[in-house]
């Protein structure tokens, strides 16, 4: 007996969207980050980022410790740009207390902060290269130099990661006697290393093919999403807080603000690469000008009591505008301390950037934000 199977193609194949869970424990999410993708074939139609796995209540904790103890929490919040975060915190305290730190301390801070920006971008270069498909090579090149800089940081602060070296009114102790020579050596190595990374990645066929034209952002969109830092400059907007609202002694140095043209992933990489060179430039100038003298403002009490008031201090960290909103009621600890984290705002635009792209590109998109999850979750 013949069976009637119906005419071929009479029934259309049904397609459904599939949910794909990425993370929280996933090597490509740069920390403990989870996203739920809804995919139509290979294309992302929806994305729901889930954050908060590293929420430690850094703001609440900072409200419960005095102004010197709070410095440590800044390291743990921005664990790739520790000096940058510390700088913002101590500047906020100094601004409110009306403390002026001595010249030498300011120069030490700038040198370390800029070197720190370089190490943070080293991390980006390594991780981003891995995301794109260079596997370990980019990590090898960037971490070779990063170690050199971290050794220098260790000599200065005694720590490789959680420095807690800046203080309201100066720095904790003076740098070692051979700091200048060591710093010059390190800067020479770093400068050469940046060229190596440049040679490895910039014209690499895989990098260009995967990143050029991926998820371009317009300046208007970027501003509306609150995107700051290299990602904003990649869209072509020439804005750097070191220039626009100079803090510390950044008005004394010559440096260029690199910008992109299309705001795509490739531009974000190029901007960061150029920023490393500019940071080395600033550090070299600061090293040249660094005077001798005291490293701590005089007449400061052991326990600082800030006058009543508030300040929103912001500075340019490797990821963008880092802000400390500090409210004081006259006590020896903040009444309220809000951390405006750049990666938090940048990450909120991930959905807008990823929808319409392929699943594999989501990872590159995420990598191009250069998130630090501790800073996102706080």
């Amino acid at each position, binding site marked *: 007996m013949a069976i009637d199977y119906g005419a071929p193609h009479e029934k259309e194949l049904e397609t459904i969207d599939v949910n794909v869970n990425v993370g929280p424990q996933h090597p490509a999410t740069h920390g403990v980050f989870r996203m739920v993708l809804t995919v139509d074939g290979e294309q992302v139609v929806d994305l729901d980022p889930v954050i*908060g796995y590293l929420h430690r209540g850094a703001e*609440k904790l900072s409200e*419960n410790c005095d102004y010197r103890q709070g410095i440590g929490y800044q390291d743990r919040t921005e664990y790739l740009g520790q000096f940058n975060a510390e700088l913002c915190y101590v500047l906020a305290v100094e*601004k409110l207390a009306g403390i002026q730190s001595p010249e030498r301390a300011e120069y030490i801070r700038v040198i370390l902060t800029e070197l720190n920006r370089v190490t943070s971008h080293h991390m980006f270069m390594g991780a981003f290269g891995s995301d794109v498909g260079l596997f370990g090579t980019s990590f090898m090149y960037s971490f070779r130099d990063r170690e050199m800089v971290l050794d220098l940081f260790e000599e200065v602060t005694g720590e490789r990661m959680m420095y807690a070296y800046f203080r309201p009114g100066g720095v904790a102790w003076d740098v070692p006697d051979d700091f200048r020579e060591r710093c010059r050596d390190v800067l020479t190595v770093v400068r050469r290393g940046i060229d190596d990374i440049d040679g490895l990645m910039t014209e690499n066929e895989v990098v260009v093919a995967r990143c050029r034209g991926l998820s371009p952002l317009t300046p208007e969109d970027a501003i509306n999403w609150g995107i700051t830092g290299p990602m904003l400059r990649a*869209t072509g907007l020439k804005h750097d807080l070191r220039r626009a609202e100079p803090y510390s002694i950044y008005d004394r140095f010559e440096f260029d603000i690199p910008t992109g043209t299309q705001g795509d992933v490739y531009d974000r990489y190029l901007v960061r690469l150029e920023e490393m060179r500019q940071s080395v430039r600033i550090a070299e100038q600061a090293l040249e000008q660094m005077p001798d003298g005291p490293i701590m403002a005089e007449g400061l009490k052991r326990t600082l009591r800030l006058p009543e*008031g*508030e300040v929103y201090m*912001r500075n340019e960290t490797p990821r963008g505008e880092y802000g400390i909103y500090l409210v004081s009621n006259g006590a020896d600890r903040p009444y309220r301390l809000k951390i405006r984290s750049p990666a938090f705002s940048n990450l*909120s635009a991930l959905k807008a950037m990823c929808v319409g792209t392929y699943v594999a590109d989501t990872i590159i998109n995420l990598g191009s934000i250069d998130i630090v999850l501790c800073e996102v979750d706080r």
Partner: protein
Amino acid sequence: MTQEPSQETTVTGPAPGPMADLFRQVLPGVQMTAKQTAIDVAITVRREDLPRVMQAVKEDQRLAFDFLRSLSGVDHMDELEVVYHLYSYKLGHSAAIKVRCPPDDPHLPSVSHLWQTANWHEREAAEMFGFVFDGHPDLRPLLTEEGLGYYSLRKTHPLAEIEEWQEDYVTAAEAGEPPGERARKKEMARRKAAIIKEVREEARARGLAAEEEKEAVQAAIKAFQEQEEALAKKAREEARAKGPAAEEKGGE
């Protein structure tokens, strides 16, 4: 891209006058108070004016605040406050806008339709302070996915006491006895606080100046501490009389 931030803007920002005047010009008839903070000018507006104010500061070309830098909640005990820090890439100036609401009615209009970035910032403020942002598209908790059941950044949620309480609970459960030393210290702190309060109120009732009040409080604290020390010393001596083992236990 033609927007170039002005090179002249410094971190000290404009004096309170010009920025506040600009606000008054753009928003005539809106009740507001201006205050110079360490860097920015802070403008406090009423809750019912907020949608109008926010719309205007973003779209009016004299202010043109196209960037919402930060949105912070602050708990002032009797009132909750939200602070919007704004920046204009076009004009290179910044300001803060504040709005207050009572803690038992924490409804505020959402600004996420003006600045996309407000979406996550408002979600965070909502879960940490208990704000309700009307008109927000998706007000789920952000950092604590399942929610905490309390608003952790409010001042009614003190950090130290809860930790202490937990520690007490654990040690007491382990030892099978009521918490000793820590409870004693807590009790002492409570008594001290009561004495300070009493002396202060008395001083205020007598109309003393602030300096004299401070002195009176410090004298009372000193007397209290001396009394406590004398008691502790007596306890130690008694313990010593009983024997060395008991002293060790009692001293700790």
